[in-house]
């Protein structure tokens, strides 16, 4: 975790106007994330976690500040540049999975590879590998509706990894899963971060999930909690 950080966030501000009210979602957020680490972004609902992930992933633009991913200033990228960034370097895992219902698990995983125009043989090999990695090799031909919630999230993770991104952003990926399944999904992310060398930034407000992170960043009312930022998480006694 030494050298140039994969993610550098500097003095990012983001506010939203709701009628006459202005909500400051992010107030001068700055932090770095080293390549290959798994970072948990922790905070209550409405604390700014999702906004921060969206700004980092180029889904939203900051009012002020800069975000560098793998050395590229995404604040300066146009629409095509952001699309390229999402196709090549940053991928997402959502709380609601976001799979295409009429495609099989394998075809869902292959979606980013199709966008990247990967050769069919390479695509099939990669899909097979990823489904095996997430433990769904036997479910390749099943459609999302035929899979459990945990399995669907595993497919979503495999899809997120398909294009070999440098940064994986996961927005409360266990939000719709029961505790046991959620923990196994987090463990999967943890394992992938190690085996694939992917940097993982995962938002959660579940204390148990934080146990698996290399580092915990706390966010509160748009500010990072300076005391916690950059500090390794101390596992709770009853966590695994």
């Amino acid at each position, binding site marked *: 975790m030494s050298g140039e950080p994969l993610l550098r966030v500097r003095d990012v501000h983001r506010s939203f106007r709701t009628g006459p009210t202005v909500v400051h979602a992010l107030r001068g957020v700055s932090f770095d994330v080293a390549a290959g680490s798994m970072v948990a972004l922790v905070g209550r609902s409405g604390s700014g976690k*999702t*906004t921060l992930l*969206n700004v980092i*992933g180029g*889904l*939203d*633009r900051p009012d002020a500040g800069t975000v560098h991913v793998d050395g590229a200033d995404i604040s300066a990228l146009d*629409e*095509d540049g952001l*699309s*390229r960034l*999402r*196709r*090549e370097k940053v*991928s*997402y895992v*959502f*709380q*609601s999975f*976001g799979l*295409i*219902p*009429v*495609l099989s698990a394998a*075809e869902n995983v292959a*979606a*980013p590879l*199709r*966008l*990247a*125009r990967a050769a*069919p043989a390479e695509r099939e090999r990669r899909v097979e590998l990823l489904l095996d990695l997430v433990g769904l090799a036997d479910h390749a031909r099943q459609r999302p*509706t035929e899979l*459990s919630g945990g399995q669907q999230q595993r497919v979503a993770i495999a*899809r997120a990894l398909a*294009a070999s991104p440098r940064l994986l952003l996961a927005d409360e990926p266990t939000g719709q899963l029961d505790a046991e399944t959620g923990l196994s999904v987090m463990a999967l992310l943890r394992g992938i971060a190690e085996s694939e060398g992917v940097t993982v930034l995962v938002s959660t407000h579940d204390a148990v999930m934080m146990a698996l992170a290399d580092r915990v960043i706390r966010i509160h009312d748009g500010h990072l909690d300076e005391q916690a930022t950059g500090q390794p998480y101390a596992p709770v006694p009853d966590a695994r």
Partner: protein
Amino acid sequence: MLLSPIAVASGPILTVTEGNAPRTFQFTYLAGDGRGPDVTWIAGSAPGPTVTDEYVVTPYQGPPWPVQVGLSEADATELHLGPGDRIPVKDGHGRKKDVRISGIYRPADSADPAWRLAPALLHPVPGADGVGITRIAGLLSRESLPDARLAVGENELRRTVHFAPVPDALTWDTTATLASQVVKLKAASGSSAARDESLKWESRLDVILREVRGRISAVSAQAAVLLIGVLTVTVLVLLLAAGLLVRRRTPALSAARQRGAALPDLGAELTIESTVVSLAAAAVGLALARAAAPGVSWAWAVPAVLAGGVAGPAFGILAAARASRDRRQPANAAARRWIRATGQLRRAAVEVAVLIAAVAAFVTLHQGGLLSVASDGDTGELTGDTILPISAPALGVLVGALVLIRLLPLGARFALRQALRSRRPLAVFGAARAAATAGRALPLLVLVSATALASFAFILGTTVSRGLADGAWSSVGADARLDVGAEAGAATPAVAERIAAAPGVGQVVVAQVTDSARVFSESTLFTPRLVVVDAAAFQRLLATTPLPDAPDLARLRTPGPGDVPALVRSSDGELRAGTRLQLPRDDAPAIRLTAVGTAPSVGGAGDVVIVDAAALASAGLPAVPNTVWVTGPGAARAVSNSGVAADVVLRADVLRAQRVAPLTAGLLRLAWTAAAMLLALGLLGLTLAAAAGAAERWQTLTRLRTLGLRHRDVRWVAAGEVLPPVVVAAVCGPLLGALLARLTLGPLDLRLLTGQAADPGAVLPWWLLALVSVALLVAAATVVPVESALRRRDRLSEVLRAGE
């Protein structure tokens, strides 16, 4: 309801004994309101009494009793007689009658309805007493009427009283009563064959009223067919709109439910809201409709108001119930299969119910026809019995749409399989969206129904328009027709030659046309329209007009020995090839005819006999042409300038009159309006369907953008979802409409409207059907980029957050 009665006293038909042309004479007394129609005596004086004594004695076997009559100018010219002359006549027993001309009159108003009862009092009437026989009549006065009574035998002076209805007083309600009263009077009437003093009632009013009521019923039912189509699509669009509204309000409803709101409370709230809106909208619509057409029925608005009032609350309650129902996907595969099977069974039950209703509607329509269905009700209002057959096209469209709803997912899945083999990601994602949304029934149902029924309405309107044109051809028989009076009959060939020489004239054919000619078979008297014409010329005329060709005309030109060949046509099929007929003549043996083929319809008559003029002349009966048919762009002008006393009938005038006739114009306006409205409803349905699916579509597209899909490519994926149902509707809708038109236009009895001899076949206006398709495709091609442009302003983060 009835005008003042007109009394008519008329003597027997007497034969004019002088002159070459066969002519008959009849003296007639007319009296309305106690006196006859006004005339001006331009020569001589009004008929007076032969004797002034109050009591007279007529000697037995004495000379014929003299009777004075007045003659019209035309009749006097025909007889070449004047005041003081005797008309040389004899009765059926060969006894001479002493009929003296007291004066020559000119009618003050030849349009006086009284003259219609005895048109021969105004001018000679050809064919009234047989083929080639011209009737002339003499006017009796109140003073000469007693002499007429003495001049003929007992019971030979026929006295009748005519009651004519007041057209403005005849309404739908009053005509039913009037017709039934006429039928009762006729049933109580003495026999017309009995020569006694018993009261006899003769009237065709009941028949005419029945025909008119039948025509009105048929047009009402035809209009109802169109209205049910509009209503069906309106209800479907309302359901789509309700679905969209509820979709938009689902978060609020779900939140209310999760906070503990009871479903009945939510339902009541939604019902009050939708009822107020629906009733207010219906009131405004009805007020506008009543302002435009007073007396318009409100019953048609009920289904739309019900749909508007009930659909929203029903969908809303379901959405609220779903929010609080723990209905996760069962882990057990068998349980999941059971749930799927239950849903499929429910859907199949609905589809089978629609199919059964459609089959029943088609069977009822084809077995009974629309006219019998409409006449059975006979109240002008729709009843339960009439709704089913009238709904046949709409139900047929629904069945067709349901079939397409079944096929579209199969097609979309096939397209997806093909796309997955390709290396084009946009094709894969577009096909995937199409496959994911192909199962949505309501949007496709709306689009297919709207396009199919709009096409049906266009076809119906076009068929009626074309039918009116054909009907005008059939009615006139050419571009122009000259009905020559008897006084100018001899000049008809010369007139025809003059017309033929005029610029812009194509074919000119002269004929002797006799309506209700008496023709006998061995046991039956027929009264067909007898047409004596140059068969070759008539065949050439038919070949150069849209009138149906009659190849059998060629057989009239090759008469065999013996009987004169004839072509026959009858509405009841009694006249057919092989039938042997007799054409009676005055004072000569009847001419024998043999039917050798089928005659074309002439002037829309159901019963027709056509004989070649040369063949008939060879048999001893030369034709006296009274009709000239003329074709060509200059026909109207040439005929109008013919310079003879004749009625000019122009096809263009007939067509114009038919088009502006209330029933025709009304149905045509309704057909065009219904087609336009259905098309507009289809476009509205497309917009609503696109809006209803927009949230989910853009949620998915945004997720694809998080995978790296470029914004400029998003619209192609969106098009992949929006276009398939639109393309299916644009292609299959008009074809379905055309198919249904072919299946249902026959029983719609459109001939009653167009004046054609037979029900017209469906005329397909391909450019209008193409317009329906193009309008839908253009709308879809507009919706996608507009939606894409609007959504471009949305931040991806907002879209994703909204979908969480």
